[in-house]
């Protein structure tokens, strides 16, 4: 294995089909994922995250640009890149008439693992995902969250050098999500690299070494969660529920982001008292809290991550 775990240069993808409008899903995405890193692509629905993952995982041809996985160009030599990768597809489901144990085991066998290795890894992956009690039940009888855990177990059991996870914890309860996060951390400690897409800000923040904020096929911002939060321009946020109309009165204090009727003012602690004075004079109410990734996202994109 040579080079970075993943490197994309000016990656573009335009969907063109008869009777449908032309869609520019990716408009020059360049990024690097270093070995052993956990990197998140953060973006709203339709931002281009899944398109990027599909190209990087050899399942979609780009319109132009390149992606290399461990130095292998996935467009020119996909068959050489495939042994290095494993994918949790978005909205993927385990085979309904297999048990989670059969699902994981047969997948590992299909990837070329020896029987004993496949068996022990299956057991380990099921235990990690908290599926011990359901391992021998048909997947059709499992809940949506348990099926999703089976999908993640299937892929993490490969311990592939580069894992792509497209919304891996969707549909899971908070406890299960934490189990997934813990397993992914263990995997990177063992040497795997992870690129995931998510629109859960807490997941991106807790899990990732670095993040890329993507919108309309473009990377708008990247860095660690702390770097992104610092880039907002302050460490505190003042949320004013019906402050959008009064935005001009707050501009001098720091970054102002409107979202519908509400206004969020990003300030440094030194200026908080002045902001609160204006709030009081305007007979409005405000809540104060630390800046989160949500503000970083709002500032970069101009919209909330859940806004369609």
């Amino acid at each position, binding site marked *: 294995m040579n080079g970075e775990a993943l490197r994309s240069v000016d990656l573009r993808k335009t969907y063109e089909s008869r009777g449908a409008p032309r869609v520019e899903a990716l408009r020059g995405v360049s990024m690097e994922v270093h070995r052993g890193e956990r990197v998140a692509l953060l973006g709203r629905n339709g931002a281009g995250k899944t398109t990027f993952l599909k190209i990087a995982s050899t399942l*979609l041809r780009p319109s132009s640009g390149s992606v290399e996985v461990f130095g292998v160009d996935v467009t020119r030599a996909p068959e050489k890149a495939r*042994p290095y*990768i494993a994918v949790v597809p978005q*909205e993927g489901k385990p085979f309904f008439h297999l048990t989670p144990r059969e699902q994981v085991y*047969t997948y590992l066998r299909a990837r070329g693992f020896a029987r004993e290795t496949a068996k022990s890894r299956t057991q380990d992956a099921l235990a990690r995902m908290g599926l011990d009690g359901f391992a021998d039940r048909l997947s059709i009888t499992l809940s949506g969250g348990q099926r999703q855990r089976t999908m993640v177990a299937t*892929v993490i059991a*490969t311990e592939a050098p580069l894992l792509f996870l497209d919304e891996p914890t969707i549909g899971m309860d908070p406890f299960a999500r934490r189990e997934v996060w813990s397993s992914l951390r263990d995997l990177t400690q063992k040497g795997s690299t992870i690129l995931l897409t998510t629109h859960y800000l807490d997941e991106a923040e807790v899990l990732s070494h670095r993040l890329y904020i993507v919108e309309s096929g473009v990377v708008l911002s990247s860095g660690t969660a702390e770097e992104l939060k610092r880039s907002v321009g302050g460490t505190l946020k003042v949320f004013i529920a019906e402050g959008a109309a009064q935005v001009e009165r707050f501009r001098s204090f720091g970054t102002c982001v409107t979202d519908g009727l509400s206004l969020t003012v990003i300030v440094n602690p030194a200026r908080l008292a002045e902001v609160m004075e204006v709030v009081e004079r305007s007979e409005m109410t405000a809540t104060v809290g630390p800046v989160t990734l949500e503000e970083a996202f709002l500032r970069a994109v101009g919209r909330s991550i859940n806004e369609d």
Partner: protein
Amino acid sequence: MRTSDALAPARPFAGTFAFLWTEVLVQKNESLAMVTSMVVPGVLLVFVEILDPSLIGVALVGAILFSTFTMGQRVLNEAAYLRIDHKANDLYLAGPLTPEAYFLGMSFGILLVYLTPTVFLAVLATFVVPLSLAVGLELLALATLVWFSAASIGYIFSTFFRDNRAIWAYSSLFFNVFGVLAPVFYPIGLFPAALRPVVLLMPPSAAAALLQSAIGAATLSSGEVALASVGLVVETVALVVLAIWWARRTVRAD
């Protein structure tokens, strides 16, 4: 941390057996589906027995070929269902399992599970049709060719659909038209002479015509024998090669 064999570049057809076994496990839980695969040939055999018992031998060997042909419909349905509903292509093909192994593993898995009704029909045929060893071997060879061509057609067609509801209608239409309307269950002699070359170029009816000739239920000219046999072999090889090429081609969408 990981075994070296799993990281080695995939050999052609690597993983075929593993995916075949996966498909057997997936299918074995639908034992009722195996029974339903007997419905169409079963009903036709009953009709033939009632309307003209002298044709039951022809209908029985036709039913054997029909049952191998309709395995293509199962490949079509299964491949499309797993791709659309389960995203199995994304899971399996973004990895070392080769596309040809995925296609052949799935097809052989379905064959293994649905072979029981075919074998049942073959056993039944031995009581009705004078099957010498040579005719038995010919039946086996022709059924194999029909199965390969049907599985290939099924897999190729599966890649064109985006909605399962459409697939179930069209796949049923396709396989029943070519397996029932064409002279598979009835002697080719009853089919309009002008259209014979057409049905002799279709895998199930070509195989049926050759079998009917072998058991003395139809008379084919040497030209027709050549057309049916060469056509069947050439078409099957071409379809399998095309399906493998197409499987590789469609791993990545445009």
